[in-house]
């Protein structure tokens, strides 16, 4: 690199800058204002050794005393121990920018686990990623691994993208749950790659800039931004930067180390190179004490006993080349892996397959079928075929499988084969953790992992790779670790930094491997299952899923539980095995599975499209198979499936009904008002819009409602979100405000309501802090507020008199003394109450009708219970339609809650919306045909309390509890499995 770096002491010293980030070490050596040596390499967490190794290499250049400074998150410890000057990395970056590109106004820097935006002009400011850190270099690595590509390959593919799918950008785990189904459904890798980049860009702009506009000359720094062409383009496009304003310097990945060098130049301290090497070497040899966990195995004997014990749980095997007779095929098309099992009529395994689906399960199943047919020759005839898992629908359509089976059912089937009395199944797969409690030979409750409890198999795998190991080798290293690292049990991003911290303290690969296994187990037990003690899980526990092939994980689980469990030898194939058992029991005379001949000419293409069926505008993937058959995925309802015969049977659906009520409310706009006032249709407005609309219309306003939420609306306001971990419904409010400003209203109204309506018999009737006060935040953070009046008075809606007085004051203050009289306001307020009562009465009536309809037609009822705003298509993601499609009559919490006496609860019952949910739970307990599914917004703090209480009410009443956590993610795959499992559980046992 031939750049001139203006240093002051260039004649007498060699100047070095060392930048040790979370994954890489970067060092530059400067001599006479020129770079004479530079390196950028992965340190595989061997921070000290790596630094030492590089320093030794620089010896050749060090013919003068050396000045040096260290920077980077992983360099802090080293600098401290060696007494070498340390400079915070953002500062180092600033040094570089000042020296080399002074007119830069913003720097965007992506590192391994950090993302930063630094503003230089107009009030210097830096932003670093907080605790939620989707969209960093490690995230891109992880996504590439998921797609079975190298980062370079992914980058090249991204350049050919035709469409962008929405990928949740805040949380790496959410992103993965968006991407996996896309891949499974056959979306092109190019499109997915570009979508990942778009998500990273989104995360940086929304999550970090937080309201501050990125404009002027923007410099892009850090590894990913210097390697990934596609990412560069994505940033430039998203920020609308002209060529002159987008700077991608050749020193992008070395910027911090250059800055460290410039900093070092000003320091007085100088070293002789040998002395320096000695200091670092001494530091490398010191191991500081740290807290650790007991080892997995005390000695070899313990290990041997363990191995011997687990060898006992196996299914019989039969040599396929010698068998003649019937066979049954089970396929488990999971999120990351595809599993196949062929069994004979004695339930013995003829053939098995387990591998990563490499982003294209169709191709894998096809190849496997070819292989199986050739092995079957004419001796074996396949009498039945069943498929389960994420890719169930796709595979079933592609190859004409006889049947699909819900994942949970398939797993229970298989587990009970090994232990007929099994009462708990824990399945840790690549992407998800599933736990089932079995009571009376039926699935009693199902728990799945959520975003913040994400440590699964692929996490260890990615981690192993990032440290330069294959998973098996990595796992084995952990078995005999002396002092496993205690890594806690939260999200994977946190775990990454815990590992970083441990490494800083000198933990080796062995201890990290064992620590990771333990943390995954703890995550499953305490966060997913939420157990307090081992006895809660029962005595007969079957563990399965690919992750349990890892003996370290298995052992960690047994140790944490304090007793032994069964791990079938085919732990990773249980879904497929269960599917095979299931179809065998169906006793089909002939299988519909694609024939060997048709298979030879089988082909598959996937194309993206957007559904125009309704306002959801689902992004569809149209799969076409060789025989002209099509399978469409991505649709939330049957409209997009292309199969008209399936179109809705018009089951009552209160969520849909309420949406229609809002549509009618919005269509009914009085256009002749003196002034236009806007109501953002989000949060509390989802219940109170009719109330305020009536009031303002009565006062002579034209009332404009912002409309339903959508992705597009969200991105409009995304720039002004200051707290990334707030719930999605709150974050959508920013878009609603922007929309209203675009509609040129004279004022926007969203009052601060500490108290909601008092529906009696509760401890209090608060709104949640977000619903109550989000206006305060909107006013302070949305720049568009300057273009309009924003009215957010504190009001008491329980007291018409007070409300009248306050509103009267508000209106006179803002629209003039003569706008109306207090009498007018009194009349308007009374009109508001009538409108609200009428509105709620309509909802109650429809709720009653729906329940009557269900009882008359023997339909199951689902109370899809959340908050009023969960009916928004962008928030609820069409979950109600899915439930409806599965045959449930869907009712909302507000239409049912008053149908029972108030529920007695063990918590402070102080939030109006949540009180309704408790009552609904009681209703579900009292009515055998009614199920409750609770919708929870990610980040809703109150729901940590309400979900546990709702669960307790339901479980006391021997009802299943199902919770669906929703956020930006739009893919319904996981939701569907959950609802199907619920359905299966109801049918099979209750």
């Amino acid at each position, binding site marked *: 690199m031939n750049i001139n770096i203006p240093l002051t002491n260039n004649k007498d010293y060699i100047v070095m800058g060392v930048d040790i980030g979370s994954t890489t070490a970067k060092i530059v050596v400067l001599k006479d204002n020129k770079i004479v040596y530079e390196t950028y390499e992965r340190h595989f967490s061997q921070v000290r050794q790596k630094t030492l190794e590089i320093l030794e290499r620089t010896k050749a250049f060090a013919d003068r005393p050396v000045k040096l400074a260290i920077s980077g998150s992983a360099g802090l410890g080293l600098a401290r121990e060696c007494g070498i*000057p340390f400079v*915070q990395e*953002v*500062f*180092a970056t*600033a*040094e570089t920018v000042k020296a080399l590109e002074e007119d830069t106004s913003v720097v965007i820097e992506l590192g391994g686990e950090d993302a930063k935006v630094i503003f230089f002009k107009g*009030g*210097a*400011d830096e932003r*670093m990623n907080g*605790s939620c850190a989707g969209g960093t270099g490690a995230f891109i690595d992880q996504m590439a691994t998921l797609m079975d590509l190298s980062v370079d390959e992914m980058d090249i593919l991204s350049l050919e993208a035709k469409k962008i799918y929405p990928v949740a950008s805040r949380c790496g785990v959410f992103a993965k749950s968006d991407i996996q189904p896309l891949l499974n459904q056959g979306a092109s890798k190019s499109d997915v790659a570009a979508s990942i980049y778009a998500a990273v860009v989104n995360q940086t702009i929304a999550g970090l800039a937080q309201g501050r506009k990125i404009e002027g000359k923007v410099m892009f720094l850090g590894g990913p931004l210097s390697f990934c062409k596609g990412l560069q383009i994505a940033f430039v496009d998203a920020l609308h930067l002209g060529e002159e304003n987008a700077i991608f310097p050749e020193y992008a990945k070395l910027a911090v180390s250059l800055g460290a060098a410039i900093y070092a130049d*000003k320091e007085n301290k100088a070293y002789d190179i040998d002395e320096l090497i000695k200091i670092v070497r001494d530091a490398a040899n010191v191991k500081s004490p740290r*807290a650790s966990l007991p080892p997995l195995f005390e000695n070899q004997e313990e290990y041997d006993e363990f191995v011997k014990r687990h060898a006992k749980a196996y299914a019989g095997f039969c040599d396929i080349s010698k068998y003649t007779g019937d066979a049954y095929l089970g396929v488990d098309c999971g999120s990351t892996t595809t599993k196949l099992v062929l069994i004979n009529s004695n339930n013995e395994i003829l053939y098995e397959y387990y591998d990563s689906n490499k982003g294209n399960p169709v191709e894998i199943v096809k190849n496997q079928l070819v292989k199986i047919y050739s092995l079957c020759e004419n001796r074996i005839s396949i009498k039945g075929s069943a498929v389960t898992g994420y890719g169930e629908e796709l595979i079933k359509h592609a190859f004409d499988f006889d049947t699909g089976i819900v994942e949970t059912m398939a797993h229970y089937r298989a587990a009970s084969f090994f232990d007929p009395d099994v009462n708990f199944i824990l399945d840790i797969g690549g992407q998800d953790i599933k736990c089932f409690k079995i009571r009376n030979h039926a699935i009693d409750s199902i728990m799945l992992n959520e975003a*913040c*409890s994400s440590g699964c198999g692929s996490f260890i795998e990615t981690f192993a790779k990032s440290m330069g190991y294959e998973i098996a080798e990595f796992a084995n290293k952990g078995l005999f670790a002396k002092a496993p690292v*205690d890594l*806690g*049990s*939260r999200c994977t991003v*946190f775990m990454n*930094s815990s590992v970083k911290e441990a490494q*800083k303290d000198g933990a080796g690969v062995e201890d990290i491997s064992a620590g990771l296994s333990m943390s995954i187990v703890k995550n499953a037990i*305490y*966060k997913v299952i*939420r157990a*307090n003690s081992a006895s809660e899980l029962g005595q007969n526990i079957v563990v399965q899923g690919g992750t349990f092939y890892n003996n370290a994980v298995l052992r960690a689980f047994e140790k944490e539980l304090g007793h032994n469990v069964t791990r079938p030898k085919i732990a990773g194939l249980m879904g497929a095995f269960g599917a095979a058992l299931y179809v065998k029991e169906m006793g089909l005379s002939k299988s519909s599975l694609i024939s060997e001949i048709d298979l030879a000419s089988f082909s598959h293409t996937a194309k993206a499209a957007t559904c125009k069926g309704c306002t959801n505008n689902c992004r569809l993937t149209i799969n076409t198979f060789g025989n002209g058959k099509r399978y469409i995925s991505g649709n939330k309802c049957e409209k997009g499936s292309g199969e008209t015969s399936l179109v809705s049977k018009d089951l009552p659906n209160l969520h849909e009904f309420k949406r229609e009520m809002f549509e009618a409310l919005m269509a009914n706009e009085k256009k002749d008002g003196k002034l236009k006032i806007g109501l953002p249709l989000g949060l509390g407005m989802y219940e109170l819009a009719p109330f305020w609309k009536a009031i303002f219309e009565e006062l002579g306003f034209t009332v404009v409602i912002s409309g339903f939420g959508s992705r597009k609306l969200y991105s409009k306001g995304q720039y002004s979100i200051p*707290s990334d*971990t*707030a719930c999605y419904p709150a974050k959508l409010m920013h878009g609603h405000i922007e929309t209203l400003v675009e509609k040129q209203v004279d004022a926007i109204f969203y009052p601060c309501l*500490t108290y909601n309506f008092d529906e009696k018999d509760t401890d*209090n009737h*608060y*709104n949640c*802090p*977000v619903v109550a*006060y989000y206006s*305060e*935040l909107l006013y*302070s*953070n949305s720049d568009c507020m300057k273009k309009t009046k924003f009215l957010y008075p*504190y*009001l*008491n809606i329980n007291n018409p008199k*007070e409300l009248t007085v*306050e509103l009267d004051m508000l209106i006179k203050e803002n629209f003039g003394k003569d706008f109306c009289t207090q009498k007018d306001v009194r009349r308007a307020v009374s009109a508001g109450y009538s409108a609200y009562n009428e509105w709620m009465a309509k909802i109650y009536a429809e709720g009653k009708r729906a329940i009557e309809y269900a009882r008359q037609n023997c339909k199951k009822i689902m109370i899809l219970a959340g908050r009023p705003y969960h009916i928004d298509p962008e928030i609820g993601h069409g979950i109600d339609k899915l439930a409806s499609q599965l045959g449930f009559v869907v009712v909302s919490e507000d239409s049912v809650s008053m149908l029972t006496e108030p529920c*007695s*609860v*063990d918590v*402070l019952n*102080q*939030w109006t919306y949540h009180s309704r949910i408790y009552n609904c739970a009681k209703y579900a307990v009292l009515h055998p045909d009614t199920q409750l599914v609770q919708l929870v917004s990610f*980040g809703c*703090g*109150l729901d*940590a309390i309400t979900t*546990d209480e709702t669960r*307790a*009410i339901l479980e*006391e009443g021997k009802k299943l509890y199902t919770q669906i956590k929703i956020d930006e993610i739009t893919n319904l795959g996981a939701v569907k499995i959950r609802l199907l499992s619920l359905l299966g559980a109801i049918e099979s046992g209750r």
Partner: protein
Amino acid sequence: MSQRVKRVVFTKEMKKEYTILVPTMLPMHFEIICRILNKNGYKAEILKNSGDHIKKLGLQYVHNDTCYPALIVIGQFLDALNSGKYDLKKVALLITQTGGGCRASNYLSLLRKALAKAGYDYIPVISLNFVGMEDSPGFKLTLPLLQKMLYAVIFGDLLMLLLNQCRSYEKVAGESRKKADIWTERLAKMLSEGFVSYSEVKKTYVEILKDFESVERTKEEKIRVGIVGEIFVKFSPLGNNNLEDFLVSEDVEVVMPGLLDFLLYCVYNTIVDTKLYGLHKLKAVGASVLDKYIVGKQKDLIEIIKQNSSFRPMTAFDHTRTLTKGYIGLGAKMGEGWLLTAEMLELVEQGVNNIVCAQPFGCLPNHIMGKGMMKPIKERHEGVSIVAIDYDPGATRINQENRIKLMLANAKAAKSPANVGAV
């Protein structure tokens, strides 16, 4: 209450025999309060147990998405009960309830649920609240007792203020801490024994000030860093990874708005409720009287500090609450509510330009009153930087400290431009 979790009432009979366990938040304040209780017929004890296993117990028995303070407080209780130190048939737990709209008022319910799960459902839990929520016949605070507790809070705030203003400058390491400990002991003794007149209290202020004034200090001017946030993680070293000590080790002076402000905030909210919504008018009259009384006491202290020492006094609450104008309404009263914004502004007004805003991960009110108000505060006050730090069981110190270091590096650069970036 359902049948799932039972409520054991703390009866009058229990008062004499039972040991009441109190969670740690502010060691000095709570120590004095505890000693007052003990001289008045109770047997109270502040929990001093700490360590990572407390978080673990919390995680095990409380929903993991619940805020961090609940995890710690409940974990600390359970750890104490498990320790074998107490006669489990003769122990009760004390927890506060503000009755506000955030989750904190539910800590009590969560504690009871956790006790039930852990097999301790027979242990009574006492709600310490001033808004007529749960009632414990065996735990009644009389007016004289409450007045002493109020003094305890004021003294605690004074000690905290002086300790922070001395410890970063002391020439003999540990001297100011030692003084604070000695005073905690003396004050505990003084307040727990018989009647204490207000003139005696005021005399003691002066003595304390004089004593701290005698600490030998360097004359340098250090960067001052304010701490605001959710009350528990703001104050409790267990909740914030010893944030204060970390900051002192980074060679800055810590500025911590006191506990009295929070009490005044709670009192004032009753007045605001009446103004805004026409609620509980009678209570508001009482609240007004109380507000005036306590603010008066605070002002007396401020005056005494000014006249008798070189230390910077706290800001009077009736001024603090005016600072929110143009930022946030006084109706925003859940969690720390508008007080959080007010305290940031109070710090800025005092010339404290660097602020750590500490909150549990996912703290709902702080989305608005903390993170939501940073933009306007920074826009209107050049040179102010605020860093939001989230605390939870999984958050690592290294990440938290790296972010604080970034702010400190900035501050140091601003102070002496020649030394850009030194950390």
